[in-house]
């Protein structure tokens, strides 16, 4: 098992590189670790029951050797990659899996995962696609059901107080991440997009208490950095699952600073707090149904739906946007052209990249990224 450094960004990087190591170590000591997908799973339920939530991820660039026997070739390549790792035994340390019904791929993955991997515990969490008042009420019931199921699995229950405590821990983590993101507003930013990626992945794979300690160190470490004087184009990356730093590295090594993101594995994962004032479960339902993934319907025209993106662009002074989608992701593909229109209406250039994840073309994107950065440089001049 990999030996992980003790502190700060070095620890975050090592946790990123050996992302399953800490959870595996805890599982070996008898701790329950439950795997989950997507930004829509209310992980506070696990924390309240002293279970480690572990966000299931794929492996960019690793061929999905076994998945082809189980999943059709037109299935989301991210899902294929995750399943490939699982069927290859890399997720054997998980005691269970929570797969939210977020998109078609996730919905159908549930039966396949359960049939072939036979996890001791599994739950398909129905996340409403709509955001009507009744949708929130329904989602509360679903979260209650999830809680009941996990309680039965571990043989203990979580009180309202336990839930509020867990919410508080996760809200603290979110606040620290937002602090870190504040440090990206500077010109140039005090932390790179790649470094942020390491931190985020560490947060998805370690117990929240440990992550909060790490975050305190990381924020202090980054805050004490001496700002450099180089002024590179400032980019925002918007898309779905980016759980690997190769895209960030490519962009940053090509001469840009990634200063903000709108990713399932980025700001979308932590931006909003849970407000427990009306009760823990209603707070969780409201917060998680508020996640801005294209799989949830939000009424209104583009300017209204993507206004949060406009706010990010303005506040982080982004000068260009990379729209990153994974092939076969219908919900993102149906939003992308309108999102592109919206960003362009704000006067920013957009680079649209479609990834195949497993056989990622990231290496081939260098020329396109460089040309895009030249466009931004020309505008800056």
């Amino acid at each position, binding site marked *: 098992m990999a030996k992980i450094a003790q502190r700060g960004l070095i620890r975050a990087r090592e946790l990123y590189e050996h992302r399953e190591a800490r959870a595996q170590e805890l599982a070996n000591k008898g701790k329950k670790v439950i795997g989950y997908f997507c930004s829509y799973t209310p992980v506070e339920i696990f924390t309240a029951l002293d279970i480690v939530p572990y966000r299931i991820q794929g492996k960019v660039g690793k061929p999905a050797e076994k998945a082809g*026997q*189980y*999943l*059709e*070739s*037109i*299935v*989301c390549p991210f899902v294929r990659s995750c399943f490939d790792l699982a069927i290859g035994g890399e997720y054997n340390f998980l005691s269970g899996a929570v797969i939210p*019904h977020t*998109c*078609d*791929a996730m*919905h*159908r*993955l*549930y*039966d*396949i995962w*359960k*049939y*072939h991997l036979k996890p001791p515990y*599994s739950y*398909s969490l*129905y996340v*409403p*696609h*709509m955001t*009507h*008042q*009744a*949708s929130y*009420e*329904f989602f509360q*019931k679903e979260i209650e*059901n999830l809680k009941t199921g996990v309680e039965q699995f571990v043989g203990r229950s979580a009180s309202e107080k336990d839930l509020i405590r867990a919410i508080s821990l996760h809200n603290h983590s979110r606040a620290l991440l937002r602090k870190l993101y504040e440090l990206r507003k500077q010109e140039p930013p005090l932390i790179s997009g790649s470094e942020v990626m390491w931190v985020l992945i560490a947060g998805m794979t370690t117990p929240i208490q440990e992550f909060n300690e790490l975050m305190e160190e990381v924020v202090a470490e980054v805050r004490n950095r001496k700002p450099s004087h180089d002024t590179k184009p400032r980019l925002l990356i918007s898309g779905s699952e980016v759980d690997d730093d190769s895209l960030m590295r490519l962009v940053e090594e090509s001469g840009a600073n990634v200063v903000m993101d709108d990713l399932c594995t980025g700001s979308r994962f932590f931006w909003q707090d849970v407000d427990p004032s009306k009760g823990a479960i209603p707070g969780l339902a409201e917060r998680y149904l508020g996640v801005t993934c*294209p*799989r949830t*319907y939000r*009424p209104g*025209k*583009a300017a209204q739906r993507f206004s949060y993106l406009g706010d990010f662009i303005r506040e982080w002074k982004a000068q260009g946007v990379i729209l990153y*989608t994974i*092939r*076969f992701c*219908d*919900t993102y*593909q*149906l*939003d*992308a*052209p*309108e999102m*592109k*229109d919206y960003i362009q209406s704000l006067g920013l250039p957009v680079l*649209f990249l*479609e990834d195949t994840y497993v056989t990622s073309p990231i290496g081939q994107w260098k020329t396109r990224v460089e040309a895009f950065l030249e466009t931004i440089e020309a505008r800056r001049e």
Partner: protein
Amino acid sequence: MAEETKTEPKQKTSSAKSTESAKKIRYIVKRMYQKAQQAKEQNLKVAYCMVMCNYEEILEALDVVQVYTENYAGLCAVKREAEQYMKKAQAEGYSDVLCGYAQVGIGFDAWRHELGGAMPPDAPDGGMPEPDVLLGCSMGCDPRWKWYQALGRYKDTPIYNMEVLMPPSDADFDAIKDYYVRYMAEELRGLIAFLEKQTGKKMDYDRLTAIVKQVEETRQWWRKAYDLRRALPCPMSTQDHFVIFVPHHMLLTDPITLDFYKGLYDELKGRVDNKIGVIDDERYRLLWGVGIPPWHSMYILDYFQEFGAVFAAETAYMIPEPFEMPANVKDPVELIALRAFERNSAMQRRGKEAGSIPPLAQAHLERIRDFSIDGVVMHITRSCRAATMGQILTRQVIRDHYPRMPVMFMESDIVDLETYSEAESKNQIDTFMEMVGTYKKSSR
């Protein structure tokens, strides 16, 4: 644009039909689009809709004319006229692997937008009229509501996207029933409020109740007719099914629909009584497994008949599960919500009771058992994730229960002709039918 991308029909793409009922459908479809195009003259509101959303009765009760956009895309594919709209959508920035139906629909409306609201030239069957409302639904797949949101690029048409729930396969159905039904009912009430505002009409709940009852009667007749296909020889093939579903899915509340399925029953009963099969010498019975068919080349299904094989059943465009209307539920909205829950959890329940069989696989196992099936054909469609993902799992479950039963995966698309190779499909069918022959011989 029409000149640049339009593909002229090269050949007849439809399959051979064995029933007189199926032969009526082309006329019914033409009439359906004509009526929709005339709706504006009659001051009626037109809705873009998706099939099987449980809102048909509500639309009928408020005199909203229904235009089923997925199926218009299917019609374009049958006529090999889909490509021009797909190319338009792709030029607008949409992915070439996005749902083929959505590509056609978005391309169609983008083109209409470009023409200042005029109908794209030579649109099949006169084209889809400009909608007054867009009514998506979450059941089935994501594009079924996301597509209408994307149309916001081209029109300011009011949208109501509605949740229709599909419970997970291993749910505790008794525990979830109450809040599932409650949510569905609230979604339907939201739709009624939305449509009352858009149409300026008030819902007549007695009329709605009557329509709900009529729909149930229609379904009973279709189910009775469908079950006659268990007979040997099979009186009607999947080729017929893939047009016969049209009145139910797109004209559910039309007065002709009930009579159509009664007529279908009579016709099939006559064929069964007189032992008239789809083909003279039925040697093998096949199941068209999950997967929307290749609308662009339906005649490929006829090729199986050259081996003496008949598609006796299918798991695509299925008849809704039976529903006993409880006498104590008087509110038609509650009734529709309850019906949606019972139907959408029926296969899950039976699969769970049968030993944790995934619902999709359960549907196949039931058809294999009830329709004396010798082999299964599934269609892997490049642009339809929802109907494709899970096919390998289904094959696995079939093999758990029928270890030697041949299962074939045909690969192409629902709309995109470029993915289709006739020679390759025929080669595959040749091999598959050999396996079916061996299987049948050994299982005697």
